[in-house]
């Protein structure tokens, strides 16, 4: 057995909550250049707390870019696979950023918000691992739109996800002067609010398949808000949740993760994200390549796999048909804490991608029977 080394001091970047995680005894590891909590207790109890009560996640490593100026929407429209200019204040949209070949540079959330002073702006939330790449990608486009300013607010803010069936009851306690406000916030809506007199951006979004919220606060307010949420959630069984369970939760929810299901070698059509590509009456970087893709039959497709036995198929495992022919590869896999069975996502030949097809997964030389199943693996009751 080999054990991963554990350090509490390192040259990696910290979030405004890293010292809290260390004090709490979390197991930390480097992720996208940040020192992040992998688990506080362990993955399974943190995962189940999120499914049954609430989980609290430090996602401050995600990059936050604020685009201001009258043409910020037009600029983003040119860069993103979905229209942005039609967003109403308070709307959030999932989209992809592609290169000219249609390869996925990142998957992002765009919110259209209004500051307390009445200024409207777009907030782009980018994967931590793509922070530098996307900042660089934006540069020449920003130069074409001199009236648009891009402020990287990642370091000056923190981002906290509150996820789970009890999230709505917990968050309202943080806004006692208007407890009905956050429960009224609809799915994929966001609002700028004052929390204890300090600015907070609250959106009804998440990456777990549960109801929940993502909250952006100033870095100096992060620990207070985090602890207030833990306190408010105590009676609902809230737990701080590390990146380990964040991964098992998103996998059960069938959500792709950049670097696994998504990359510059994969286009949104192949990834099963056609809903996030809009061609009508607009042009954007990669549109021609993607239009061509969308008119062809795809060669490979992203699918869900349910395996027999207890061994998980991990990234890179080969998927075979029942005649032992290679048909694809696993991109993420784990033992599902909710379903108590191994699950995986994979790219496989389109003709083999039909739900119900029996396949075989080669797990380090031993074969496990598997079945192609519909995504997501898990769906929350009330959403």
């Amino acid at each position, binding site marked *: 057995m080999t054990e991963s080394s554990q350090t509490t001091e390192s040259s990696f970047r910290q979030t405004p909550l890293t010292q809290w995680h260390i004090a709490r005894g979390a197991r930390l590891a480097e992720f996208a250049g940040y020192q992040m909590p992998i688990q506080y207790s362990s993955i*399974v109890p943190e995962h189940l707390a999120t499914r049954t009560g609430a989980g609290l996640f430090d996602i401050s490593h995600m990059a936050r870019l604020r685009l201001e100026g009258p043409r910020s929407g037009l600029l983003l429209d040119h860069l993103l696979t979905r229209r942005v200019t039609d967003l109403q204040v308070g709307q959030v949209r999932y989209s992809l950023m592609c290169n000219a070949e249609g390869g996925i540079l990142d998957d992002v959330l765009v919110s259209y918000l209004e500051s307390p002073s009445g200024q409207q702006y777009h907030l782009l939330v980018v994967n931590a691992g793509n922070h530098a790449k996307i900042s660089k990608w934006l540069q020449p486009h920003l130069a074409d739109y001199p009236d648009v300013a891009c402020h990287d607010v990642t370091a000056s803010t923190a981002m906290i996800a509150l996820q789970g069936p009890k999230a709505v009851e917990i968050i309202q306690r943080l806004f006692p002067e208007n407890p009905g406000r956050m429960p009224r916030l609809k799915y994929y809506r966001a609002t700028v609010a004052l929390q204890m007199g300090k600015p907070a951006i609250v959106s009804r979004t998440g990456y777990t398949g549960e109801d929940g919220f993502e909250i952006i606060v100033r870095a100096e307010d992060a620990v207070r808000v985090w602890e207030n949420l833990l306190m408010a959630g105590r009676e609902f069984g809230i737990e701080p949740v590390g990146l380990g369970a964040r991964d098992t939760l998103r996998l059960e929810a069938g959500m792709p993760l950049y670097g696994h299901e998504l990359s510059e070698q994969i286009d949104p059509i192949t990834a099963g994200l056609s809903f996030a590509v809009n061609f009508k009456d607009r042009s954007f970087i990669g549109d021609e390549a993607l239009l061509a893709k969308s008119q062809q039959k795809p060669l490979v497709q992203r699918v869900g796999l349910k395996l027999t036995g207890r061994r*998980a198929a991990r990234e890179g495992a080969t998927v075979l048909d029942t005649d032992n022919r290679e048909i694809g590869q696993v991109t993420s896999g784990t033992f599902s804490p909710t379903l108590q069975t191994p699950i995986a996502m994979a790219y496989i030949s389109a003709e083999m991608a039909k739900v119900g097809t029996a396949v075989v997964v080669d797990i380090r030389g031993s074969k496990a029977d598997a079945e192609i199943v519909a995504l997501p693996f898990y769906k929350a009751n009330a959403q």
Partner: protein
Amino acid sequence: MNPENLKYNESHEWVGLTSENGQQVAVVGITDFAIQQLTDLVYMELPKIGAQVVQGQQFGEVESVKAVSPLYSPVTGKVVAVHSELADQLEGLASDPYDNGWLIKVEMAAGATIDNLLDYAAYQKQCAS
């Protein structure tokens, strides 16, 4: 088995010598510390009876929700018993890693030794560092 009388791999497997039916056997398991580090165990792949194991070489693997870790044999010889029921009782392994948590029993090859492994004090020191 009393952990103080066992020998240890740096990779957290333990081995203890005992006598069964007048035969000396080496009992192999993984340490409490390892189980605490791994967390959320879901599966264990163990060799079959009769398989040869070699000191320092992989003889199986243990899988948690998070990852798969190889198991390295602390001893050279032939597997004479396998704790196959353990696969369904991985939760119980944590409570009793040194007795009911044994993984395999090995009939040591002629000339094989465990004297080169860490003793309890040295292993404790490694875990504390």
